[in-house]
């Protein structure tokens, strides 16, 4: 099984590739609609501005093949913005439409705390999670974001809190997504990626 990394120009693609390499997984990066249509598993990394990701998906005609692949049941993992784009829209660029595969919207974290939410934080498990299998309940993961899904309508397997509780791990059939960066989260992050590889295999 090969993981197809959707490369729209996000800065974290090389670190995701390296993290997969360390696990012995085969991966390839692509920005071509055909490669997404033929993918066995899709990983969508993302850092930066929501608008950059949505515009890149539309300009490169990746939206339809990506949505089709997910509808067909192709295992999907979204990281950071790759989680946010699964929802209807984001307050970071409210004029744009997300993939609308999950019910809910992306909101700004409340300004009562320091933003971006940057650094290592722990999760609150909400239900059994295949992505978090075998990972210590107190494990820390690396976050770097100012927007989040505050109400995931039950799709969150785990949440995190920074000013407000938000979805940290999403698991809904073949859709998997994390608000943190497993590729930058040491051993627990590597374990999570390995769990995804097993789910996808």
């Amino acid at each position: 099984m090969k993981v197809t990394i959707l490369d729209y120009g996000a800065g974290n693609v090389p670190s995701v590739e390296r993290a997969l390499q360390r696990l012995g997984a085969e991966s390839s990066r692509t920005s071509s609609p055909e490669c997404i249509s033929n993918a066995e598993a899709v990983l969508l990394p993302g850092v930066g501005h929501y608008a950059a990701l949505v515009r890149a998906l539309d300009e490169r005609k990746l939206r339809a093949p990506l949505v089709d692949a997910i509808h067909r049941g192709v295992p999907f993992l979204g990281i950071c913005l790759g989680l946010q784009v699964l929802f209807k829209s984001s307050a970071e660029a409210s004029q744009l439409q997300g993939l609308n595969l999950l019910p809910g919207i992306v909101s700004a974290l409340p300004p009562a705390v320091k933003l971006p939410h940057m650094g290592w934080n722990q999760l609150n498990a909400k239900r059994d999670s295949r992505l978090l299998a075998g990972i210590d309940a107190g494990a820390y993961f690396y976050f770097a974001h100012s927007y989040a899904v505050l109400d995931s309508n039950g799709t969150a397997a785990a949440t995190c809190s920074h000013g407000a509780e938000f979805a940290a791990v999403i698991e809904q059939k073949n859709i998997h997504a994390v608000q943190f960066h497993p590729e930058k989260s040491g051993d627990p992050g590597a374990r999570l990626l390995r769990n995804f590889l097993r789910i996808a295999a």
Partner: protein
Amino acid sequence: MSLAHRIIPCLDTDGERVVKGVNFVGLRDAGDPVALAARYNAEGADELVVLDIAASRDRRPTFLETIRRVAAELAIPLTAGGGIRTLEDGRAVVRAGADKVTVNTAAVERPALISELSREFGTQAVVLAIDAKRSGHHWDVMVRGGRESASRDALEWARLAVAAGAGEILLTSVDRDGTQSGFDVALTAAISRAVTVPVIASGGAKSPEHFVEIFQEGAADAALAASIFHDEVQSIRTLKEFLAARGVEVRLPC
């Protein structure tokens, strides 16, 4: 349960080798950046900063290669900078594997650099480095490796830079840097309370108590040090255990 306070080792390089400063002068060689990066990654460092303190144009390809080799060792975030003057400089550093770019002198001279970088990479990827030196009742922004005053108030500059899109401030006390007499608590607390973004305190660290102090009294979100980690005066693991025992939330390595 909350956001952990971060411990960040810093590699000051001449582009290729790690060097370190005492009050920014008198540099000496302290090793191979790739070996140090691997060690810190394994010891439980929360992030790593790699700076090119020589920042000469002709050695830039060497520094980018250093970033590439260091990034390959890390499963934690990497910040790189030193001599970043343009958006293109920032792109090169990100492409080489850095998660965040730090800017200093060039941003003081042309604050639009901060907005350009944050528009392209997001605010979380833009770290404004401020070298501050006490001057009467305020702190002056220093540029060119801490040697020259920019005749600018550090608090005012920090607020402006955050408004322009800086997502984090790496605050170095020029007065304390290299002295090992403790972080500058007053400076860090003043800046941390003046801005809405995380602040990394730097300069002056030696003992574990210095770290407790900067987190509990200096309101720092992260603390950075170089020589005490390189010289193994302080191991990151024992430092974190000390902090946890003193009630400071940290990520303990397993």
